C-alpha cells in the first residue's frame, strides 16, 4: 500500500510539473501576471511529492519489500542496511528517480533565489524547468517505474551488484547528478533570455553562479567516479575513456568553456550568442549522456540496464528539447548580437581561444564516443575506439589550451598586451621550466618528451595563478572572492596537470605469478608475496593474500588484496589493496590460483596519482569560493551602500542570486 502511495506521489508531481510549465511559460506570454504566483507553489509542491516518492522507495528497500520488482532486482536481505539505502540508485529506475529528485532540488534553489530576478524572466526559466521535469517524470512513469510490483513476490532479492557495494558509490551518483542536472538551470535561464530576446547582458550575470556551481559539482562527481573505478574495479586504472565517463566529461568540458565565455559576456557584453549556444550544448550533452548510459546502445562497464524502447523515448526527448532550444536559438540569437571590438592580445581573445580549444576537445571526445554507434548504424562494421585514439587526439587541442592559461589569466580586458604582468610571467615560466626538468630528469627519470612539457605547463599555471593573490596581499589589498576563486581553480588545474603528466609517464605495471616468498621489483619498490588464507565476510567468502613492500630494504607497507565470491549472485570480485601516499600509490590485486602454489598478481606503482583527484577537488573548491564569496561581498556592499531598511529595495533589481 505504501508503495502505491509512492507511485501516486510521482503522478501528482507530474501534474504539478505540467502546471509549473504551463503557468511559467504562458503567464508571461499572455501577459497574465497573476498566473505567475502559481509557478513557485507548483515547483515546491513538485519537490514535496518527488521527495515523498523517494522516501517510499527507500522505505521499500530498508524494509526488504521484495514484492517491488526494483527492490527484488537490486537488494537482498543479507545486504548491509547502508547499501540497501544506496541501492536506490543502483540501477536504471532508481537513478531516473534520483535524476528527477535532483532536478526538483535545483528548481527549488531557483525558486528560493527568484526574488533577485525580474518576475517574468524567473517564471519563464521555471517554466522551462517544468517542461524538462514533465518529460522525465513521463519517461519514468511510462517506461521505468521503480514502483512496479513483482507478482508473485520473491522470498529474497537478487542482490546489489557487488561492484556497487562501496561507500564511494553512496556519494558518487548524487554528486555527479547534481552537476549533470545543474546545467538544466543554465539551460533554462538561456531559454528564458532567448524567449524574451533580451538585448542586455544581465542574463549572463544571473547565469554565472548557477553554471559555476553545477560545474563544481560535476568536477567532484567525475573525480569521485574515477577514484571509485580506480580502487573498486580492482585493476588500477583511473580513466578508461569509457562511454559513460565520456558522457559526464563532455558536459564538463563545455561547462568549462561556458564559465569562461560567461565571464566575457557578463563583463564586456561580448560573445552573447556563443554563450547561449554553449549553455544549450552543455545541457544537451547532459541529456545525451543520460541517453548513452541508459539506452544501452553503447558497450560500457556502467550499463547495468539495457532496454532499447527506453532509448527511443529518450531519443524523442532529445530531439524535442535540443531541437526546440536550437530552433529558439536560430530565431533569437541574431537579435542578441553583440558589437564591440577587442585587441589581439587581450583577455577576450585568450578566453576565445580557451573556448575554441575546449570545444574542439569536447568534439574529439564526442566523435570517439559516438563513432562505434554511427559505424554500426551505417553498416560499416563493429568497431571500438579506445585510449590509443583518445589520448593523442585529446592532447592536440588541450595542450595549447593549457599553455595559454597562464597568459590568459593576466591579459588585460580590451587593451592589447600583457602590461606589467609580462616580467613576472616570464620569470615564472623560467622557474617552471627548470623545476620541470629537475623533476622529470632527476626525480622521475623517464624518456618521454611530453613529461617535461606537461610538468612545465602544470607548474606555470600554478605559479601564475599565485602571482595575483600574492601581489595583492603584499600591497595590503583585499582579495575579491572572484579573483580568489579563479586563482584556486587554476591552481587545481595545475595540480591536476602535474598528476596526469607523471602518472601517465612513470607508472609501472606488472602482471606476475608468484609463489609464497617470491618477490617482484617495480622501480625502487620490492613487492614480496607472503602467501594468504581463506576468509569469510557478511555476504561473501574469499581468499586474502599478503604482499609486503620494501624500498631499498626498508619496510614500506603490507597489503592484503582479496578475491571475493558473493553468494547471492555467485559473482567473483577482485578487491585490490592500495598503499596510498601523497606522492605515489602502490597497488596489489590478486588474479587467480595458477597452480603449483602460485597466485597471479597485478602489481602497480603510480606516482602522483592523488594529484589528479586533489586537483579536480581544488578546481571545484575554487568555483564554490567564487560563488559564495561573491554573494557575501554583494550583500555586504548592498548593506553598506544603502541606509538601513532600504536594503530590501535592492531585490528585484537584478542582483546576483
Amino acid at each position, binding site marked *: 500500500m505504501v508503495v502505491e502511495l509512492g507511485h501516486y506521489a510521482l503522478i501528482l508531481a507530474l501534474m504539478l510539473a505540467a502546471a509549473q510549465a504551463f503557468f511559467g511559460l504562458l503567464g508571461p506570454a499572455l501577459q497574465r501576471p497573476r498566473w505567475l504566483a502559481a509557478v513557485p507553489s507548483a515547483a515546491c509542491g513538485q519537490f514535496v511529492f518527488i521527495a515523498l516518492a523517494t522516501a517510499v522507495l527507500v522505505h521499500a528497500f530498508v524494509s526488504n519489500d521484495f514484492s517491488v520488482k526494483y527492490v527484488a532486482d537490486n537488494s537482498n536481505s543479507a545486504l548491509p542496511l547502508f547499501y540497501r539505502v544506496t541501492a536506490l540508485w543502483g540501477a536504471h529506475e532508481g537513478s531516473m528517480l534520483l535524476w528527477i529528485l535532483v532536478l526538483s532540488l535545483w528548481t527549488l534553489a531557483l525558486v528560493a533565489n527568484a526574488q533577485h530576478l525580474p518576475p517574468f524572466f524567473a517564471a519563464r526559466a521555471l517554466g522551462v524547468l517544468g517542461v524538462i521535469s514533465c518529460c522525465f517524470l513521463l519517461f519514468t512513469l511510462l517506461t521505468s517505474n521503480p514502483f512496479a510490483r513483482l507478482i508473485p513476490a520473491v522470498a529474497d532479492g537478487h542482490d546489489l*551488484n557487488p561492484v556497487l557495494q562501496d561507500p564511494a558509490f553512496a556519494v558518487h551518483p548524487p554528486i555527479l547528478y547534481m552537476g549533470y542536472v545543474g546545467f538544466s538551470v543554465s539551460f533554462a535561464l538561456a531559454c528564458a533570455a532567448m524567449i524574451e530576446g533580451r538585448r542586455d547582458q544581465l542574463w549572463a550575470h544571473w547565469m554565472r553562479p548557477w553554471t559555476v556551481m553545477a560545474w563544481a559539482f560535476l568536477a567532484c562527481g567525475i573525480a569521485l567516479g574515477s577514484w571509485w573505478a580506480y580502487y573498486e*574495479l*580492482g585493476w588500477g586504472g583511473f580513466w578508461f575513456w569509457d562511454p559513460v565517463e565520456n558522457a559526464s566529461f563532455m558536459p564538463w568540458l563545455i561547462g568549462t568553456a561556458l564559465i569562461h565565455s560567461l565571464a566575457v559576456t557578463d563583463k564586456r557584453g561580448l560573445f552573447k550568442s556563443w554563450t547561449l549556444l554553449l549553455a544549450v550544448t552543455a545541457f544537451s550533452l547532459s541529456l545525451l549522456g543520460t541517453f548513452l548510459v541508459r539506452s544501452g546502445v553503447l*558497450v560500457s*562497464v556502467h550499463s*547495468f540496464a539495457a532496454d532499447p524502447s527506453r532509448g527511443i523515448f529518450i531519443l524523442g526527448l532529445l530531439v524535442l528539447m535540443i531541437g526546440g532550444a536550437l530552433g529558439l536559438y536560430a530565431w533569437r540569437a541574431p537579435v542578441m548580437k553583440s558589437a564591440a*571590438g577587442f585587441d*589581439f592580445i587581450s583577455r577576450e581573445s585568450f578566453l576565445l581561444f580557451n573556448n*575554441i580549444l575546449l570545444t*574542439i576537445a569536447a568534439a*574529439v571526445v564526442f*566523435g*570517439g564516443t559516438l*563513432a562505434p554507434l554511427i559505424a554500426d548504424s551505417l553498416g560499416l*562494421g*563493429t*568497431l*571500438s*575506439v*579506445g585510449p*590509443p*585514439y583518445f589520448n*593523442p*587526439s585529446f592532447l*592536440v*587541442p588541450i595542450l595549447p589550451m593549457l599553455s595559454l592559461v597562464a597568459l590568459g589569466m593576466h591579459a588585460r580586458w580590451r587593451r592589447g598586451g600583457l602590461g606589467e604582468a609580462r616580467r613576472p610571467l616570464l620569470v615564472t615560466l623560467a622557474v617552471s621550466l627548470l623545476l620541470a626538468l629537475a623533476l622529470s630528469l632527476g626525480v622521475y627519470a623517464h624518456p618521454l618528451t611530453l613529461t617535461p612539457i606537461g610538468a612545465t605547463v602544470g607548474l606555470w599555471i600554478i605559479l601564475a595563478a599565485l602571482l595575483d593573490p600574492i601581489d595583492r596581499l603584499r600591497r595590503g589589498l583585499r582579495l575579491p572572492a572572484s579573483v580568489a576563486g579563479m586563482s584556486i581553480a587554476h591552481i587545481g588545474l595545475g595540480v591536476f596537470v602535474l598528476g596526469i603528466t607523471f602518472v601517465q609517464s612513470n607508472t609501472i605495471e606488472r*602482471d*606476475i*605469478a608468484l*609463489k609464497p616468498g617470491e618477490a617482484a621489483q617495480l622501480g625502487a619498490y620490492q613487492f614480496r608475496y607472503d602467501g594468504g588464507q581463506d576468509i569469510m565476510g557478511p555476504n561473501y567468502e574469499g581468499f586474502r593474500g599478503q604482499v609486503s613492500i620494501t624500498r631499498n630494504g626498508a619496510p614500506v607497507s603490507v597489503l592484503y588484496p582479496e578475491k571475493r565470491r558473493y553468494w547471492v*549472485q*555467485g*559473482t*567473483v*570480485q*577482485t578487491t585490490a589493496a592500495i598503499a596510498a601516499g601523497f606522492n605515489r600509490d602502490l597497488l596489489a*590485486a590478486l*588474479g*587467480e590460483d*595458477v*597452480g*603449483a*602454489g*602460485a597466485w*597471479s*598478481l*597485478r602489481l602497480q606503482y603510480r606516482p602522483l596519482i592523488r594529484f589528479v583527484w586533489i586537483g579536480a577537488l581544488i578546481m571545484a573548491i575554487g568555483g564554490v569560493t567564487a560563488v559564495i564569496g561573491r554573494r557575501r561581498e554583494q550583500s555586504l556592499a548592498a548593506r553598506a551602500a544603502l541606509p538601513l531598511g532600504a536594503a530590501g529595495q535592492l531585490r528585484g533589481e537584478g542582483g546576483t542570486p
Partner: protein
Amino acid sequence: MTPRRRRLFWVLGILAGVGIAGALALRAFQQNVMFYFDPSRIAAGEVKPGQRFRLGGMVEQGSLARTPGSLEVRFVVTDFRHEVPVRYANVLPDLFREGAGVVAHGRLDASGTFIADEVLAKHDEKYMPPEVARSLKQNSASSPAAAAAGEGH
C-alpha cells in the same frame, strides 16, 4: 588593419586550427580504431595480416589450459562454426570462464593463434557482449549449439 580584415584573419586562423586538429584526430582515429571479428570471419580470411583487432565469441568448454605456476594461459574461442586458439600472458578478468562470452584484443600470429594483450569479460554474469550475442545469433541458423547459447541471454 581594418576591422574587416582583422575579422577575416581571425576566421582563417580559427579554421586552420580546427582543420589541423580535425586532421590529426582523424589520423589517430584511422590508426587506432579496432574492428570486431568472430572466428567465422577470421576463417573466411577477412583479417589483414598483422592487423590488431577485437576477437569475440564463447570460451570453449574444457579448452582452458595453464602452464602451472605461470601466467601463460591458452583457450579456444568459438562461434560454434569455427575456432580460434588464443594465448594470453596477463591476469584474466574476474568474469572469465569456460562457456561464457569473451572479447579479446590482439593480433594473429603466423600459425593462426591469436596473441591477446587484453581480455575483457568485465560485466555481470548475465551479460553477453552485444556483438558476441549478435554474431552467435547470425550463426545459429546452422548450429543448434549456438542457438542454445544465444538464446540463453
